């Protein structure tokens, strides 16, 4: 079984976010980049599946050379090889087009993504890639098993969950619970240095949208404390001041 895992390099949630003076891009100085947490889950599940059934796990990222530490981390965790499409992602359509192209060239049985990236929180890439490849997709999955050429997944729906079955090839996006992320061991870290990392050129696609500026939310005004023995005071404020009940 050949699995492609899409990974994106994102700022660690705990780091402070600042933007360039024109507010058009993230100021990356001093920002710690990590594998998107959901992608780490997807990668771990891919490794578990190939360890059981045999096969190979390739990771792909669309990004410039600054994303290589994150790719090496994925290799250290256990991926067999990696592809880096050398471009700064412009919009989701651009990123998905690059992944779809690589997928077409290599015939994967399964493409595993994270449910969403924690930088843009879009949940766009997995479904776009599936549509470009004209294959089925199951998103926001908490469980994934594969039997022969059929996958079974548990996906989240409003107020519950759904168990679905779908033939391969397919795209699956991973959510919390599909696997517990692994920490690379020393042997993994050593071998990651020599695992193949192919750098490919991006295909050109039309620019359909772009971020023209970022801004930060207004800080909340300081908290109004209500004495613990006057809960009715809170209810009153929620009614008259916040107007939420």
């Amino acid at each position, binding site marked *: 079984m050949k699995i492609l895992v899409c990974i994106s390099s994102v700022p660690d949630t705990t780091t402070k976010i600042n933007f360039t003076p024109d507010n058009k891009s993230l100021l990356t100085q001093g920002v710690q980049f990590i594998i998107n947490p959901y992608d780490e889950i997807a990668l771990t599940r891919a490794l578990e599946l190939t360890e059981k059934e045999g096969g190979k796990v390739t990771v792909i990222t669309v990004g410039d050379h600054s994303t290589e530490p994150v790719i090496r981390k994925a290799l250290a965790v256990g991926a067999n090889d990696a592809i880096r499409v050398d471009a700064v992602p412009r919009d989701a359509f651009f990123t998905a087009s690059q992944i779809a192209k690589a997928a077409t060239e290599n015939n994967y049985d399964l493409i595993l993504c994270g449910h969403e990236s*924690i930088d843009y929180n879009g949940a766009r890439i997995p479904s776009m890639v599936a549509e470009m490849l004209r294959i089925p997709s199951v998103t*926001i999955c908490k469980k994934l098993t594969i039997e022969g050429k059929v996958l079974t997944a548990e996906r989240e729906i409003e*107020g519950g969950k759904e168990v679905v079955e779908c033939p391969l090839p397919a795209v699956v996006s991973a959510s919390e619970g599909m696997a517990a992320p692994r920490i690379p061991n020393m042997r993994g870290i050593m071998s990651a240095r020599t695992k193949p990392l192919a750098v490919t050129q991006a295909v050109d696609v039309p620019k359909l949208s772009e971020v023209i500026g970022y801004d930060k939310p207004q800080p909340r005004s300081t908290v109004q404390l209500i004495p613990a023995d006057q809960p009715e005071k809170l209810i009153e404020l*929620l009614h008259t001041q*916040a107007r*939420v009940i």
Partner: protein
Amino acid sequence: MSVLVYVEHSEGKIKKSSFEATTYGKDLSVMLNLPCVAVAIGNISAEELKLLGAYGASKVVHCNSPELSSFSAQSYAGAVASVAAEEKAKVVLLSASFSVKGMAPRVAVKLQAGFADGVISMADVSSGFKVRKGAFSGKAFANISMYSDIKVITISPNSYKILKGEGSAEVVINSYKPGAEENKVKVKETIRATDKISLPEAEIVVSAGRGMKGPENWGMIEDLAASLGAALACSKPVADAGWRPHSEHVGQTGVTISPNLYIAIGISGAIQHLAGVSSSKTIVVINKDPEAPFFKAADFGIVGDALEIVPKLTDAVKRFKAAH
């Protein structure tokens, strides 16, 4: 030409989030000087669909072929894209539910349209087409300019005020049938907790963390939620420990929500938790530690023991509801 709104329903009833999307669609269509058309898929009555007229849809296209009776991202996206082409939609609008998150990007690819997800306010059409959404897990907003002729946007639930007027929409049947290759995902089992309020759409969310000590203390949290008509949520460690199901876990690795009111009980307010809840309109924090970081992100707070405060708060809510 038109503005097309995708309408979701559950057990025969149109979802509130779809009334919200229809109101948004209508207001946008007025600015663009286009009619607002809705599209619904699957088993739902014409009577129910006519209700969309009161929210501004002039027409509802109903795709009701049996092949579309259960959700599949691929076939539903096919139906919406097909109706969008027939109605010459300039903008396709959807409310960002779990299912929509899996189908809207497909609609965009099919229509070669620019895509923006989780939009939080009305589009700016004064020059070009600009939308605004959250980014970096609640730490920033991104303003996006869309250049494509057709645009697909999903709106974040609870971000636009529903406006109900008068009127009834005309319902027309569309016979779109997905191809066999578009219908490969088969639903084997649906596990639904029907009596529960869906978390991403809820207007009020009551959430609790490790400060509750153990699952045996969740009864009072459920009582408070019931008194407010709120959905339940929890912090990650609570779900990890199996005190509550993972579907209730909010935050960076859980569900992202933006209710009108978020009540956090016994939750410290770690950045990964805030990432999923910081766009809530009003935040109330109940914590025994006055130094808990959550108080910095809160509008109202009570310092004290949740086990004592929560039952009293529930009584206060009940008294309030009885009086209003």
